[in-house]
């Protein structure tokens, strides 16, 4: 086994044996799985429905309130005082009072509750009454209900993307966006996490003075490369464990509690919706759900539109490429300074492009083929994050190849640069290093 391999092995083993690695590796998938499972469980297990009593003095709207997800309406033929007493006795969570003049003066509507009122219930009621008032006003203006029904024209454009292979696929930008953002975020996080591990590792060797013992046996470049590759393997291992464990946990839940995951398409809307949509949007969506394909259907068809082999291969490539590019720079910083406090002045120019890429990801998502997206996905400092954001939207293979080539060139360059700084810096103590000194080291033969 070559010496570099020995170094890689030590870097890898010493890190994956650390408690922090084990904790992160276990907690990561649990958190990810929780993000998927918890909303499902919550929406299914919310057994106590929100009970709303309706006292309608106008007698116009009693039958307009259909029960919604977790919200139950009960019509009371009594006065408002009795209804409030019933609520106090625990029969209801809230009482809606619709006075006779409600239609003329909507501000006279009241929703009583002992605890803070449920926002979802309030929004749902407001929405129902709004629609009712509107249709009453339209009727009062002499517009026939049938005409009204005929006028209502749901418009739903089916976005079709023509792929490079000429195939027509329906396009779902939301799904592409989510996927792109997720993978861009992951790359950003991993580069930062493991890049700074390289920095700390190099600094550790320098400050505890083992480095001179080691580089009398191996060349400085072997030590640096061994560390970068060893830490990179740790990152890759952690990532793979996360993916496998997350799927295992989710699949385990699906097998263990199948009733939680058995949806009719109609229910699916509300389950997915419960994470992000408020009751108003929920209602609107329910109206149109028959014309649209379901959101679940959209997700499925959106996912099927993504070229997963390209996506996964690209992820691994851009993750490794971006990591190697930045880790070399982090290693150079670690070698140039004497202690962690001194790293700050050099960290800035390294972290700013990465942070910039992450911030620009939002803009790139809104226009994934624009000039900004194109340029940022070519510049090696930003391309790992930006290209991963773009890929789910479809990127021409030529652009992908060019970006990959530039990234390879980029990390070869940063590795060369870093090795020049590293071999001098690693033996330099007690010297306040500035950029001009770094430049001298780079030029030094």
């Amino acid at each position, binding site marked *: 086994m070559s010496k570099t391999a*020995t170094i890689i092995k030590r870097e890898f083993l010493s890190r994956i044996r650390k408690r922090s690695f084990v904790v992160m590796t276990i907690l990561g998938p649990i958190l990810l799985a929780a993000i998927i499972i918890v909303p499902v469980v919550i929406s299914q297990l919310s057994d106590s429905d929100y009970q709303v009593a309706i006292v309608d003095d106008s007698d116009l709207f009693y039958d307009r309130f259909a029960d919604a997800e977790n919200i139950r309406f009960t019509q009371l033929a009594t006065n408002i005082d009795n209804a409030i007493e019933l609520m106090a006795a625990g029969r209801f969570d809230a009482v809606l009072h619709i006075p006779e003049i409600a239609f003329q003066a909507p501000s006279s509507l009241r929703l009583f509750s002992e605890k803070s009122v449920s926002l979802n219930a309030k929004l749902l009621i407001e929405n129902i009454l709004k629609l009712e008032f509107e249709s009453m006003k339209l009727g009062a203006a002499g517009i026939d209900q049938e005409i009204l029904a005929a006028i209502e024209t749901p418009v739903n454009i089916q976005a079709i993307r023509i792929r490079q292979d000429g195939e027509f696929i329906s396009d779902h930008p939301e799904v592409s966006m989510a996927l792109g953002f997720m993978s861009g975020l992951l790359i950003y996080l991993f580069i930062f996490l493991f890049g700074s591990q390289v920095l700390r590792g190099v600094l550790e060797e320098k400050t505890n003075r083992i480095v001179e013992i080691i580089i009398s046996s191996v060349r400085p470049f072997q030590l640096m490369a061994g560390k970068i590759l060893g830490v990179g393997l740790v990152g890759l291992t952690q990532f793979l464990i996360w993916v496998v464990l997350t799927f295992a946990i989710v699949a385990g839940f699906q097998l263990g509690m199948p009733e939680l995951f058995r949806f009719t398409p109609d229910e699916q809307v509300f389950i997915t919706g419960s994470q992000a949509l408020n009751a108003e949007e929920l209602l609107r969506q329910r109206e149109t759900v028959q014309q649209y394909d379901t959101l679940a259907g959209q997700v499925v068809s959106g996912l099927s539109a993504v070229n997963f082999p390209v996506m996964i291969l690209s992820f691994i490539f851009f993750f490794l490429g971006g990591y190697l590019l930045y880790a070399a720079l982090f290693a150079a910083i670690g070698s140039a300074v004497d202690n962690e406090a001194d790293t700050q002045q050099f960290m800035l120019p390294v972290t700013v492009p990465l942070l910039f890429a992450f911030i620009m990801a939002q803009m790139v998502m809104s226009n994934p083929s624009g000039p900004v997206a194109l340029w940022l996905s070519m510049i090696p400092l930003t391309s790992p994050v930006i290209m991963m954001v773009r890929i789910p939207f479809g990127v021409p293979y030529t652009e992908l190849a060019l970006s990959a080539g530039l990234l390879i060139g980029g990390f070869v360059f940063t590795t060369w640069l870093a090795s020049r700084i590293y071999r001098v810096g690693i033996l330099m103590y007690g010297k306040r290093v500035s950029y001009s000194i770094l430049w001298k080291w780079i030029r030094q033969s």
Partner: protein
Amino acid sequence: METLLRAEHITKEYTHHKALDDVSMHVPRQSIFGLLGPNGAGKTTLIRIVNQIIAPDRGQIIFHGEPLGPEHVQQIGYLPEERGLYKKMKVGEQAIYLARLKGISASDARSQLREWFDKFDLMPWWNKKVEELSKGMQQKVQFIITVLHKPSLLIFDEPFSGFDPINVNLLKEEILHLRDEGATIIFSTHNMGSVEEICDHIVLIDNAKKLLEGNVGQIRKDHARQIYQVELDHLKKPLEEILDGRFELIRAWDHDGSLKARIRIKKGIQVNELIGQLIPSAGLLSFHELTPGMNDIFIKQVTGSYPQEKSGNKPAQAFQAAG
């Protein structure tokens, strides 16, 4: 004597100063070679060049008769002055790792480490983390790692710093033992006491230049300054009157009823003439030559004068009696 390592006209410049200026030296095989010089003289730079950690700007190193190259790394063991270990790594595991970087297989490393660990009473610490060891024990571990792969050339940079006297002795014995077994040792220090004790040859570097090189005994002989210490009694007349113009009395003092004196013999005068001059006029109790210690030679070479000539009033401490 056969030369193991030869440095030829080594020059190394940094941006603001010259670290080594045309330094050459011969390290004889199976000897202990002292690399001496004040702080900042260029010792560590020279050692790093021999270890191929840095490359010289000019000059070359000949090792085993061929230009030094990466294939020689395994034949050199290096204990740097500033040395450390991975604090969180277990002692045994770390020793095996560092041995493997020198090219020893894991199983060989393990069995040889067992022997050394037993010898240094470190075996109970095999599975402990380095940070749990005392500084002295860490130094022992580093020493073991340096010599484990049985290199033909060992380089120790201030090896005794941080050791207590008991362990210094243990280490000295081990170093002498390694030399006797065939190893060549380069020993960098500014502690002259240990140089006289264990070094066979030295090179003295100051301000990037070589000042002196050679066999320790020979150097001391070369630096002999014709100063003799005598002990006399029953003087028939004052010492000043006994000595004539061929001799110079440096200092005389009473010692338990006898008279001790330091006398310099002028150039071209034989020692016997001094004895001949003394014997008729006094009883000669003892007579020996005062040769300067390495410490004095060191200071003379670096500053240009012997210590007592500078401070002027403490000759007795500046000289050391030689057998």
